[in-house]
């Protein structure tokens, strides 16, 4: 793993409307907001699953619990996100998940009484910026979160490559997005693509640079303010630098 895979100067000058700000800002029942929340929950399922697996239950149970959690979350919708001060989807999700676990019984009862009346409170203190032990459920969550972000960005990069007719180059360089090539390996690739090694090295650098930009864009979709983005990027750096436990 690279030592500083995502060290980039911030370039975002104007902060756009993000999926998460759409969810936060919407009045309950807004179609767009609902769709945005659905999408976010679909994309960010793996960290919830990783948390629940590490939390204890056997695999099947973790899958079931994940399912139940998201059903609950989507049923409660904007009740759940009534606190705009939180700002970050990752933190929201983690707090909601912990709440869900400790209140499982209460939620079950509430659902029996007609559902949707309980609101998730987000006043749990989640430590931000503290190194997280990857062996803990929180650590597993963070790492899976980072992985999702990078994968999403890589998919976007692949779409761009395809649109530009550069899919072959992209596929050849994909293994070096996060890992560095050994010299023989990349000499071989250069030969196969009929490129000079120097040119290939530059392409690797630029491709990584573009991945970083896309990672930032992906991340930006989960926060409401530009200044939260830097904190989230540090969390991601840290999660990727920590060996999986």
């Amino acid at each position, binding site marked *: 793993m*690279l*030592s*500083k*895979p995502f*060290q980039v100067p911030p370039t975002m000058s104007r902060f756009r409307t993000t999926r998460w700000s759409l969810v936060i800002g919407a009045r309950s029942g807004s179609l767009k907001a609902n769709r945005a929340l659905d999408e976010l929950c679909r994309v960010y399922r793996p960290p919830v699953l990783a948390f629940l697996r590490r939390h204890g239950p056997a695999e099947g149970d973790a899958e079931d619990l994940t399912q139940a959690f998201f059903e609950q979350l989507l049923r409660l919708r904007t009740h759940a996100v009534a606190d705009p001060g939180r700002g970050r989807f990752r933190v929201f999700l983690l707090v909601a998940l912990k709440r869900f676990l400790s209140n499982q019984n209460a939620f079950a009862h509430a659902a029996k009484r007609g559902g949707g009346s309980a609101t998730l409170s987000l006043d749990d203190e989640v430590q931000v910026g503290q190194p997280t032990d990857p062996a803990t459920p929180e650590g597993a969550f963070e790492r899976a979160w980072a992985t999702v972000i990078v994968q999403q960005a890589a998919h976007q990069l692949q779409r*761009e*490559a395809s649109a*530009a007719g*550069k899919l072959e180059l992209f596929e050849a360089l994909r293994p070096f997005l996060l890992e*560095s*090539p*050994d*010299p023989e390996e*990349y000499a071989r690739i250069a030969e196969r693509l009929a*490129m*000079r*090694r*120097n*040119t*290939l*090295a*530059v*392409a*690797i*650098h*630029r*491709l990584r*640079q*573009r991945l970083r930009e896309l990672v930032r864009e992906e991340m930006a979709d989960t926060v409401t303010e530009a200044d939260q983005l830097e904190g989230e990027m540090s969390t991601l750096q840290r999660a990727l630098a920590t060996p999986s436990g």
Partner: protein
Amino acid sequence: MVPAEPAATPATNEGFAATRWTLVAAAGAQDPASARRALIELCLRYWFPVYSYIRGCGHTQEVAQDITRSYFEDLLQRKLSLDDMRARGRFREFILNELTRFLARDWRKTGEQAAVPEFDHPHDVEQLEHRHQRGVAADLSLEQSYQRSYALEVLGGALARLRREADQAGHLAMFEAMEPFLSVDPAPGQFEELARQLKIRPLATVVALKRLRQRFRELADAELAETVASAADLEAERKVLASALGVP
């Protein structure tokens, strides 16, 4: 081989004329080919700071060396004139600005150079890496590690000239004995030991070291003077590089 030359670094404004910039500009009017050679030589001298910057981006040695090579190929095949370069600020900034622009180009447009210019590869990667590891701390920002490597390159150039001068004057042994003390004061007893080794009196050793240091400073200024266009720029560059090296 650059002949030993007197310090080309008058400290005053009126004396400030013979920098590489201005010499190249003047020569260019008569002999474009030799002006271009001088310019290429000047660019390639700063291979090491460029390499350091790219290593700082997280690339392995081989990839960093390949990217450095590509960068200089790109820079030199654009056949920038001296005026183009000057318009872009001090040489140090010019090299860095061009580098960040080169690296930030759209990856989808990465292609082969139309005509790859021929130049001698100035460093092997082991040597570069050795200097990089020794001189650049891991916690420096990319720009800081570039500044620092640039400063080290300037001093390295001055040291090489000092050595040549000493060699031509038949004082190579003395130079080699005194080199460790160019920037570090001798510990108690070391002056005497140095004197015994050189078979001269301790007082003469003190004087000789003082002169050598003075000449080293002059040559470092001469190196820097080749990369700026005015005395004011020289003074500013001196400050930037001293601070990059942590010298007060």
